[in-house]
């Protein structure tokens, strides 16, 4: 456990010692801030739903930026030789790294509470909708982080891993639209893989256990995949 925390702490240091996290946060709040002001000024309705809907779209661009160097950078700098020859197992290394992204996600989610805070000055917010929306974007972000982590473990090139992460997340996003263009059983099957539509219930104010389980298994799957990809490197 100590090794996991050591890796997690190190990753957080890397995020905040380098400009990566700041740039990503700035970009995120620039875009969401723009959406927020435009939406709120034009509609004059105290409602967080359009806001959190927009945020999910911004995640698509910000999260690959936050995850692209996670493993790629180790592979490029040769520090993977340090990690993989230490007593830490690859599982511990990946979990440590993933925990760091969760902390970043948590920080990002907490920062978004600024918008509802502003809204609450102008009217009363629907509390369940607010908190479940916050939970939903946290879960969605965490799931995307896991995909990004997986993409990063595939290659030593940050840019490539960023693009692969973006494309993977985009594909999981497009599944929704694909689902709309087919009918019957196929539609049901395809929508099972959609990571975005799972947030719908939360944003209506319904606590959706199935969606929660979905996100957790989804995250586990990508964490395990990343571990396997790196474990294979020992057998190159």
């Amino acid at each position: 456990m100590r090794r996991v925390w050591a890796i997690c702490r190190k990753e957080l240091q890397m995020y905040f010692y380098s400009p990566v996290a700041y740039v990503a946060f700035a970009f995120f709040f620039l875009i969401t801030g723009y959406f927020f002001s435009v939406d709120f000024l034009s509609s004059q309705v105290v409602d967080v739903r359009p806001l959190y809907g927009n945020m999910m779209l911004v995640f698509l661009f910000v999260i690959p930026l936050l995850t692209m160097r996670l493993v790629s950078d180790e592979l490029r700098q040769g520090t993977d030789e340090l990690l993989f020859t230490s007593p830490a197992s690859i599982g511990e290394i990946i979990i440590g790294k993933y925990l760091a992204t969760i902390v970043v996600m948590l920080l990002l989610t907490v920062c978004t509470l600024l918008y509802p805070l502003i809204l609450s000055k102008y009217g009363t917010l629907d509390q369940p909708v607010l908190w479940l929306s916050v939970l939903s974007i946290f879960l969605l972000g965490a799931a995307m982080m896991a995909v990004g982590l997986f993409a990063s473990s595939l290659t030593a090139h940050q840019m490539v891993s960023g693009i692969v992460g973006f494309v993977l997340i985009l594909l999981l996003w497009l599944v929704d639209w694909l689902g709309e263009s087919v009918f019957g059983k196929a539609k049901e099957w395809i929508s099972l893989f959609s990571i975005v539509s799972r947030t719908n219930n939360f944003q209506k104010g319904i606590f959706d256990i199935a969606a929660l389980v979905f996100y957790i298994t989804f995250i586990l799957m990508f964490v395990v995949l990343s571990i396997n990809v790196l474990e294979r490197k020992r057998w190159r």
Partner: protein
Amino acid sequence: MLEVKEVSKLYQNQRGVHNIDFSMSRGEIVGFLGPNGAGKTTTMRMITGYLNPTRGKITVDGMSMSDHPKKARRKIGYLPETPPLYPEMSVESYLKFIADLRDVPARERKTRIGEVIEKLGLRGRERQIIRSLSKGYRQRVGLAQAILHKPDLLIMDEPTSGLDPNQIIEIRQLIKELGENHTVLLSTHILPEVSTLCNRVLIINNGKIVLDGNPDQLDGTLGENFEVSLEVRGPKDAVIRELKQIEAVKIVRELRHDLPDGEDRPIRLQVTARDRSDIREAIFHKMANSGYPILEMRKRSLSLEDVFIRLTANEPLAADPGAGETEELKEVGRDA
């Protein structure tokens, strides 16, 4: 301490190592030599557990790398070819991270970090960002990382590559000191390094170990003919004729000379025997009988360079390099 048993690593493109087999006992400093691409790094990566061998078994202090990887890796300190550093971190926070990663007990962490900082001369640079350190200091931080958890076995992949001559001397001195408490395996392609640092040398070529021995005794191991270099005062042709009369002598060659020609000029010769038997006494008697004083006679031993080149060059070297013109240069190199 370390046992490498019939270890092979096969890559798709055929390069790799084949049936490497050696063991190291506690306290040895072993130099691992070989041309680029011979398999040094691959072998070291397998010993440290970074790569799994395709076949064979590696045991570190009784712990099998495949069965107890964590316990085995805990006993190893590893400095890869490029020191594995995070440029964004300060020296201190980097070493703290390593201490946690390598299971250094939390109570000892502070003192242990203090010790290695002292030992590697990093005092005063603890707060410096690694990116801003010079290459020599980065190498020191890399070494600090490798010894922080007091490993029994220290593995270093070309620890002096890319450093300037002063830094090389410093790092070698450090390695020598470390060798007093650790078992060390270091790879290099700088040959004098092996002679000065190691008490054993392994030469690897094309993924196979071609030599395993003491760097001082290498000359006897190759089955070369006995060679003597000789300085005699006397007429050149007569001396050479006399020497050739000795039964055991095969070749007599003149070595080039810097001194101006003249009657009293001593001649320098290289005499090669037909086999490995000592011909020095025979030469002495022959010259004494003819009245040509021997000014100098020295048994020639192969330097590590010669051994290395002979073992790793793919085509056998010509047995008799007839022209002696280049010989003097090599000779100077050996004396130095």
